[in-house]
């Protein structure tokens, strides 16, 4: 389980302190999928980076399995929108990188990555450089690399946002399959209301800017729908997206300090 205990992140820019997010309290139960959605600049990436141990919160704590996070953690994998893969390494070498960095020897790396590439349908492309893979395959490879390290926490920052609609949906299915098989705790940042509603067991809506805060929390009615694919077509899904859209438009709940920053529902993909 992951817990954020009034986490604030800020950046130093030319001697000035720019707050990115402030006072974030949240819980991410083991094995759950949480979607974080919010307007541009509200600090979603900053929050993910704090959870990944890439930036240190200026106050508050990130607790993973009850322990305070002090830096990058081996069992946490992060998938970014772009730039995640190294263009000078083949698909296989990219997927092996976390294992190489952990000091695993070549034979073990090979065999583990072989099965992960297989799982994501990339075996035939093991020797390809990322530049020769399609956008969808590249993100599939990013998922493969994340899984190679056998993470218990998977953080994703707009992982599918540069993909076309069909590829995106197929990757969403892939992600759900992976989740069902491995039971990894997933935190997913997205700009898409539909994606958040479809993938998230619980949803965090953020709002505001410098600092951003949690505006509201929603959760998906779970259990009453048979299959996830049918959920997309159900009335529950529709009412959830409507609710999300309204929450996004409302912005931060106690937002007295933000007169101008009313985020519009804008890019409802």
């Amino acid at each position: 389980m992951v817990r954020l205990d009034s986490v604030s992140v800020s950046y130093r820019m030319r001697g000035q302190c720019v707050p990115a997010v402030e006072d974030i309290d949240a819980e991410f139960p083991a094995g759950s999928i949480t979607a974080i959605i919010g307007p541009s600049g509200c600090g979603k990436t900053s929050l993910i980076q704090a959870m990944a141990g890439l930036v240190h919160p200026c106050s508050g704590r990130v607790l993973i399995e009850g322990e305070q996070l002090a830096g990058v953690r081996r069992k946490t994998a992060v998938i970014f929108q772009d730039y995640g893969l190294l263009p000078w390494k083949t698909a296989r070498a990219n997927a092996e990188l976390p294992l190489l960095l952990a000091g695993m020897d070549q034979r073990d790396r090979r065999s583990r990555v072989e099965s992960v590439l297989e799982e994501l349908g990339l075996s035939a492309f093991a020797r390809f450089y990322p530049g020769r893979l399609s956008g969808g395959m590249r993100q599939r490879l990013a998922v493969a690399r994340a899984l190679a390290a056998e993470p218990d926490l998977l953080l994703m920052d707009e992982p599918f946002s540069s993909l076309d609609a069909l590829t995106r949906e197929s990757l969403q299915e892939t992600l759900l399959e992976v989740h069902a098989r491995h039971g990894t705790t997933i935190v997913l940042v997205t700009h898409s209301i539909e994606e958040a509603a479809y993938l998230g067991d619980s949803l965090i809506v953020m709002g505001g800017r410098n600092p951003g805060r949690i505006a509201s929390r929603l959760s998906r009615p779970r259990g009453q729908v048979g299959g996830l694919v049918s959920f997309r077509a159900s009335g529950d899904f529709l009412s959830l997206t409507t609710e999300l859209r309204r929450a996004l438009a409302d912005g931060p709940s106690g937002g007295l300090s933000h007169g101008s920053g009313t985020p519009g529902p804008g890019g409802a993909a």
Partner: protein
Amino acid sequence: MRVEGNLGKALRAAAAAAVILLLWELASLAVARSFLPGPEAALGRLVSRIANGSLLPHIAASLRRVVLALLVAAPLATALGLASGRSPALDSLVSPFVYLLHPLPKVAFLPVIMLFLGLGDVAKVFLIGIIIFGQMLVSGRDAARAVPRALVDSVRSLGARRWAVMRHVVLPASLPALLSSLRVSLGTAIAVLFLAESFAAESGLGWYIVDSWTRVDYPDMYAAIVALSVFGLACYLAVDMAEAVLCRWRNTD
């Protein structure tokens, strides 16, 4: 596809060489003076000088100087350049010196270098070395600076520390820039090598050119000029080949 591409490239280079030789021949016929012999005289002499072994020590001497300078300067410049591109603290220390020293024409310091380091190989290697060093330092630093932060973050999130980030991200990302600055600086280095060898030396292609000039043996002089040109071309090709092997990922599309 690729083989055909290379073949086509070789054919075009051969055609260009033929055109150059033809123009040389025509010029030599038009000028009709002993100081511009035709290519057949120069190339014939080159072949016989290589065959009787008298030119080889000079080629070897020049090659040794360039390779030595390269072996010392390139790793140092790469290490310092990449490190200062990634560390603002180091960069603020290094950059002022680069800013002041880089534009200086290093070759003008040849006399000073020779006074300090003597007339032997050390001075020549040093001069060529600082030229390669300066060029690669600057482009290594700039390339390392330009590595996207997100790429570094993604590899850090996999557990890479500073050193691993250098090895897996910064170095490969900067390699194309480093190699093309190497190509440029090798061209400069060979020009400077000629100058450095042309006085205070008894070996090297530069010395051979000047020596045959004073001996008024023009075919010999042109033979050595051709040898030096081919030498420069070979260096260029060597860097190209290194690039094709080390940056294979770039020829994917």
